[in-house]
């Protein structure tokens, strides 16, 4: 079947990455976090209609779930989740005068998909 053309303005409701920057200064943490100044706390949000699951970086499972949802609406739609994550490193000082460099994996959402 031809993939239906997505109507104008429909895109912003579709599943995609929303950018959100956490500035440590806003939390008052700049007094003990040496670097970085903050980090991208992006999140995934948006609709996962059947048409989305055929060409976006979505999983086969999402395609099947969307297909089942069309057949039987009691089956929930596929959901919008991170498909690529990256780590951050935080250099900070604790109360015992120790300087600590700690790595946290899966902290930043780079890509989203259904």
């Amino acid at each position, binding site marked *: 079947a031809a993939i239906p053309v997505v109507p104008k303005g429909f895109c912003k409701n579709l599943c995609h990455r929303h950018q959100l920057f956490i500035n440590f200064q806003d939390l008052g943490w700049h007094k*003990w976090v040496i670097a*970085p100044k903050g980090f991208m706390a992006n999140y995934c949000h948006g609709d996962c209609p059947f048409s989305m699951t055929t060409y976006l970086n979505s999983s086969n499972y999402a395609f099947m779930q969307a297909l089942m949802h069309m057949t039987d609406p009691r089956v929930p739609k596929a959901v919008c989740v991170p498909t690529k994550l*990256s780590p951050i490193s935080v*250099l900070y000082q604790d109360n015992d005068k*120790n300087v*600590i460099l700690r790595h946290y994996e899966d902290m930043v959402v780079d890509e989203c998909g259904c």
Partner: protein
Amino acid sequence: QTSDFQDYDFLQFLGLEKAPSPHRFQPVPRILRKIIRAREAAAASGASQDLCYVKELGVRGNLLRLLPDQGFFLNTQKPSQDGSCLQKVLYFNLSAIKEKGKLTMAQLTLDLGPRSYYNLQPELVMALSVVQDRGVRGRSHPKLGRLLAQLSVPGPQGSLQFNLQGVVKDWNRNRLKSLDLYLQILVQEDRYSGVNVQLENPCDRLIRSLHASLLVVTLNPKHCHPSSRKRR
């Protein structure tokens, strides 16, 4: 109220009970700045990173901690009878390492201060030993254990690094609460005598500029095993 709640959760997530409130920032060693800049550059370029390997140090680990020396000098007067210019007990509080996992590196950095601009600098002989028993501060001499390093350097010239593999083994075996080391520095007078230029006493300069710190690297297998998904 809401932001406090988020604050608390976020701090717990970062592995902290509460937000540190340091009076002043400790000097951050170049190596830590170099690592975090490399990580930030890699993140900005989207390059994939192995969180569990610190390539700048050549060891596996996902948490680096710099512990300041909290020890004390044993002699601050001029060279004592055995000619040693400086005797110091270095003390590092290892109980600060709270996270699970194993130690993969313990690197002692001794900064003896910058090179003096006089070419004639006294040669220094340094001996670093493990302290078995600290004795009573100011009254008795510490009881020494194994000698960790002995070397002579042609005068103060910035930082010297010592990788203490024995300490790594001991800590992984029974999570030591502290590390006590004994540092003795002797001045080789012969290169120094006969100089008529009035130079500052090398001991005073050493005692004033010595700065010691211990960089420890820990590897948490829960975070570093590639297949494990972190529990939310």
